[in-house]
């Protein structure tokens, strides 16, 4: 990716995530933070994807970053974490490979359908695994903190 392409990519991610915060009617004061979570998680995705070439690992890392940032922002803002979390995850949603899978199936291109389908499934599984694992750790830490306080 050239510097210009990277700039366009990050700018569109940021503004696109702001668009989603408006569609989901986040409070105005949370819109910017939601978009920041989106762009930071996406940068994490890009770095891991560049290093490993695995969409699963990239989506996993991106979603873990998204969950952690969302929990921190939720504590600071005294709000629910889901609204920030979904902003972080939305740039990783595999809209492009999903479309390409459908087109490959339509054209009877089984090899293409398998390639795009596995990319779509890998990304979705990576997101799911990242969200689950990060939430599991946060849940454990919350319970442990509660017991220490008692």
């Amino acid at each position, binding site marked *: 990716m050239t510097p210009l392409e990277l700039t366009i990519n990050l700018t569109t991610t940021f503004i*696109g995530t702001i668009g989603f915060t408006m569609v989901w*009617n986040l409070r105005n004061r949370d819109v910017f933070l939601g978009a920041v979570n989106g762009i930071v998680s996406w940068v994490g995705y890009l770095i891991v994807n560049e290093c490993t070439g695995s969409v699963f690992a990239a989506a996993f890392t991106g979603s873990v970053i998204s969950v952690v940032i969302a929990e921190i922002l939720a504590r600071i803002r005294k709000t629910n974490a*889901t*609204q920030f979390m979904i902003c972080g995850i939305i740039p990783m949603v595999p*809209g492009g490979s*999903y479309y390409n899978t459908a087109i490959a199936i*339509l054209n009877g291109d089984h090899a293409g359908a398998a390639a795009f389908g596995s990319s779509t499934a890998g990304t979705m599984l990576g997101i799911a695994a990242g969200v689950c694992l990060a939430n599991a750790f946060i849940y454990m830490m919350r319970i442990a903190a509660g017991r220490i306080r008692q």
Partner: protein
Amino acid sequence: MTVRRYNRLRADDITAAGQGGGRSSAACRSRADENKDQRMLSLFVDVGMEMLQNGAEIWRAEETIERMGYAYGAARMDIFSVTNYLAATMTMQDYGEQTVTRRVVISGNNFERVEELNALSRDYCRRPFDMEELADRIDSIRDKKVNIYKAYIGSLLVGSMFTVFFGGNALDGVVSGLCALLICFMQRNLKSLCSSNEFFYFLSSLIMGFLIGFIHLFLPINTAMVIIGDIMLLIPGLMMMNAIKDIFLDDTLSGIMRLTESLFWTGGIACGFIIPIFIMGM
């Protein structure tokens, strides 16, 4: 409306109802209190139902009702919820159990409303207020109008930006943004006419596919990029994520229901776009 009027019954009416049976004063007072408990529980369940309807997770709605119940003075709270059903039983120390159930119809994602309901429940748990005030505050949150311009501008940004993000050029972005406005319009006006979410998303994808194909006859756009940008608005990303979280948090039934619905929904989008692509040879 009926529910709202029911919730807004005054405490005087409840006392009067309790005194009408010709029982001893202690028994009448007990019955009036039971009626009050029933109405309070009904309001707590309304708060949880509104949260579910606006995109909150199952555990959040259940926990909110539970906390409000304990703040009210319940000895025990048992809440059960799946995506479209909510039941709560409140057990008081001196009286019997009260149960309220609701059929939940998911209306969309509105995080501002979820946040206001959260704040309401926090305020109530900190300083439990009376039934009238609680009913008024729920009504004011429910009646608050959503800023439609915000939704339209948001859709425009999502459609245009994600088209460029996936590799489209400026013209693709502009066309996709304009198509996104139509998606937003359909989500606000056509959804309520459709029998199911799946059918709505099939129909809107079908309309969008034909529209993009028609525009392609006059403008040199990359139809794939325009469709991909607009698909981002339709894909049930939040629902899938909530499904995963529900499964992880032991709400397996709700999670599977949400996941199944989101898969059918995604299938509806694919079918809706594939038909015009096939017919118009895009």
